[in-house]
């Protein structure tokens, strides 16, 4: 019973790591750099989701149009993913494109600085007050013989898996996806063959940021207290998941995200919870010792793998 309950807990918690890790992985495969501002883009996505949801709820209560609650949530996710993808493209244009020829370390530092700018910018804009994420759908708890599941938990896991699958299909089946894979193969030669590097870079950032926004809204649904620094810790941990999955691997990032969620939850189940992160991340370290390139990573290659 406890095991089953924790399995559900872990599925929900892993969903966030998986969605955020995807963004890290994609950018790495195309541009060979980790976008360290990604955790903060997740935060911006959550706040944009908060704004969109509040606006939609306000319009509905004012009587501008009548929307059922679930539709408000769906629209919030779609609009916020769209808007946050622009944030991602701006970050790429302002922060990374001017530094494309610069040493990798400079570009990585840029990410950290953009992250701080996003955090403190939000702090200046909205203040340090915690924001309560609007509850668009009422929580229904189902009691399945001692195991408790809420409608929100089911939705979070289903939406995350759907998004990961959609991304997988996009990369495998579309022309843009093909271009991304080609670029991941060799980002010096492929642009010479007519694939526009800047467009591809912008698109990768847009996709990654849209996924981060979706993660942000789902996070707000599950843990309805937002603050400007909410993206730092989860961003780091998702970064661990991206490495664990194998740099540049879409499937790997998803699986590793869920795995990380499982490790964290089950370590806390078995051991005293005080030691949770200590033991959980020692396990991760141990995995990396034996598989230094992660689960789906290959040595000396950054190909975008499926």
């Amino acid at each position, binding site marked *: 019973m406890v095991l089953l309950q924790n399995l559900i*807990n872990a599925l929900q918690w892993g969903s966030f790591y998986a969605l955020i890790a995807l963004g890290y992985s994609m950018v790495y495969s195309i541009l060979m750099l980790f976008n360290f501002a990604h955790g903060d883009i997740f935060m911006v996505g959550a706040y944009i989701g908060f704004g969109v949801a509040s606006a939609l709820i306000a319009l509905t209560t004012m009587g501008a149009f009548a929307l059922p609650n679930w539709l408000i949530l769906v629209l919030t996710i779609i609009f916020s993913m769209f808007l946050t993808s622009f944030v991602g493209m701006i970050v790429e244009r302002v922060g990374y494109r001017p530094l494309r020829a610069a040493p990798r370390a400079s570009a990585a530092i840029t990410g950290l600085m953009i992250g701080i700018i996003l955090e403190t910018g939000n702090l200046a804009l909205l203040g*340090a007050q*915690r924001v309560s994420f609007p509850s668009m759908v009422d929580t229904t708890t189902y*009691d399945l013989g001692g195991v408790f599941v809420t409608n929100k938990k089911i939705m979070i896991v289903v939406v995350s898996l759907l998004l990961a699958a959609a991304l997988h299909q996009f990369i495998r089946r579309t022309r843009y996806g093909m271009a991304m894979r080609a670029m991941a193969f060799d980002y010096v030669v492929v642009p010479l063959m007519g694939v526009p590097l800047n467009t591809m870079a912008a698109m990768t950032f847009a996709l990654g940021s849209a996924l981060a926004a979706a993660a942000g809204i789902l996070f707000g649904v599950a843990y*309805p207290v937002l603050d400007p620094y909410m993206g730092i*810790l989860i961003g780091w941990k998702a970064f661990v998941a991206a490495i664990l999955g194998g740099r540049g691997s879409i499937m790997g990032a998803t699986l590793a995200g869920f795995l990380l969620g499982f490790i*964290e939850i089950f370590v806390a*189940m078995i051991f*005293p*919870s005080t030691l949770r992160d200590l033991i959980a991340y020692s396990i991760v370290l141990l995995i990396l010792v034996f598989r230094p390139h992660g689960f789906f990573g290959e040595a000396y290659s950054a190909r975008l793998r499926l």
Partner: protein
Amino acid sequence: MKKGVLLAGVIICIAVVAAFYACGPKGPETIKIGINAPITGDIPKVGEGTKYAAEMWLEDINAAGGLEVGGKKYKVELVIEDNESKAESAVAVTTKMITEDGVLAIVGPQASKQAIPAGGKANELETPMISPWSTNPDTTKDRPYVFRGCFLDPFQGPVVANFVRDEFGFTKAAVLYDVASDYPKGLAEFFKEAWEKINGPGSVVAFESFTTKDTDFSSQLTKIINSGAEVLFTPQYYNEVALIVQQAHQLGWDKPIVGSDSWGSAETVQLCGKDCYGLFFSTHYAAAGATGATKEFIDRYNAKYGYVPDDVGALTWDSMRIVQQAIQDTGGLSGDIKKDRKAVRDAMAKIKEFDGITGKMTFTEEGDPIKCAVIVKISDTGEFEFYKSVCP
């Protein structure tokens, strides 16, 4: 060569300006009081309450034309600094206020996580500091220069344990707390000790923890729910209270959840919503049903800032007035900041009985007040209702 000259010039300029700044006019005409508050960070509402209460106090002083000490009127200035709710920033802020701003006394930090290290610094630099809200014993322990305006956790822990036992008759309790923060950690341990004293060893059936910034407590809560506990005690700050209570309910917990004075923020109910209705916590004062000077303070604060002040605001107000009384009790300031700080410290240690808006208090040798605690119930409309009073 040219560059070198330029650089030297710049350095000399900076040195000269700095020297002027340091020896600048530091007349005894103004009294500076430092306010060390968490304006940003994890608990911004606490910082806001601190700032507002301090500014209201300053208003009164200004309205009276300054603070009268030994027959002379002084202008009072507040040095309000943000400690970002971090221990290291609180120490930096304390050092800056004492060495650069030349404050006579400091009010704050509020949370024990910041107050314990900052108190060490203030004591070392021999400047009186009073923390309005820090309930952990370590804040004032063996520190003659550090005081506080509230009761202590070794008192609060048993208060909560006894209340739960008397009210519900439970014998098995669970605790969930942040292991990386001094206040919840200390109080969780005091509660455990008190609970096991009443109900026998092993009666705390789950003692679970997490670290600051965690948002998912599902694993710990699953453990607690399956431990057979009848009540959950969680001495956390308002942002975590909302998450813990909601997640507990979603995981099927329908028994009481009890909290401590850190719940008493105006924002707890706002973030937590209906999930928190009907829960109990121990605190310093209850706004609903207040009388006399307490009511006067609440009404004034509410009219000025648009919400009922929480315990931090009330305790800060009391602490400001304790500082004021200590300064006035010195009988006159010499202008030598070091001597004056010592005089204020001595005067503060001599305050025997103080009639504050959070109750009457007497001070012990350690600089800790002895005062009553209040059990508050969150009503079905989300208001903090007085439930009962517990005195030492």
